[in-house]
């Protein structure tokens, strides 16, 4: 009981701290590394919630592939820091106000909906094993799964077209 709560709050502190540090750090490389820490923490949350397959997919795809792509592009462009003049000072307070409003509204929703307070029960031992996920994926969700492969192919072709050097300027 208490160990679960301690684990939750410790991990939540790491996740929120990493997210805040990502927002505050001036260097984009540090932001990416803090985001990787946040993703890893969320992967541990997935493990705690009995989702080992999703947790591993999170680590390999998100914290691995996607963030490596981010770091690669940051270093390719040499755009660690956006330097230069700061204009439009009214944006920052307004943005903080809006984000606070969003957080307060969702918080209000939590306490308004009483059925969310239910404690998560210990799951059955065969809940969400990779085998069960695979069976559901290839039986009930076969069409979306195949459409996803088409989507990834389209994304790959799109990226190649977008980043290809133009042969001749202006035709």
């Amino acid at each position, binding site marked *: 009981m208490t160990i679960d709560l301690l684990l939750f709050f410790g991990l939540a502190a790491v996740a929120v701290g990493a997210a805040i540090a990502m927002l505050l750090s001036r260097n984009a490389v540090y932001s990416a590394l803090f985001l990787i820490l946040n993703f890893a923490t969320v992967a541990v949350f997935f493990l705690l919630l009995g989702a080992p397959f999703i947790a591993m997919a999170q680590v390999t795809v998100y914290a691995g592939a996607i963030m490596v792509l981010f770091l690669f592009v940051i270093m390719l462009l040499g755009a660690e820091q956006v330097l230069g003049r700061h204009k439009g000072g009214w944006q920052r307070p307004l943005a903080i106000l809006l984000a606070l409003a969003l957080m307060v509204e969702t*918080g209000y929703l939590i306490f308004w909906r009483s059925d969310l307070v239910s404690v998560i029960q210990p799951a059955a031992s065969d809940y969400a094993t990779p085998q069960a996920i695979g069976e559901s994926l290839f039986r009930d969700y076969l069409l979306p799964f195949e459409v996803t492969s088409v989507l*990834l192919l389209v994304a790959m072709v799109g990226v190649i077209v977008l980043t290809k050097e133009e042969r001749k300027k202006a035709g």
Partner: protein
Amino acid sequence: MVPVSYYFALSAILFALGALGVLVRRNAIVVFMSVELMLNAANLLFVAFARSYAALNGQIYVFFVIAVAAAEVAIGLALIVAIFRTKQSIDIDEMSSLKG
């Protein structure tokens, strides 16, 4: 075990921080990373509710969200590279003209 509302609160905080990052930061790559943070907060809530209702569907959706996010990141970063080639900057305040 921990109540679902705790996960809801954590997810709400992470989502609000991501939204704040999108609104405040001017580095396009950091803005993009904030979008990933918001997606991840939604994923956390998906998995928490899937566990709460002892259903698998939420986890399957998270799988698809991760796949779509991978495609989205590839396209978005390619766009950022293309913009950097023409403007030599990824400051989102600089991207104010529609004509290349």
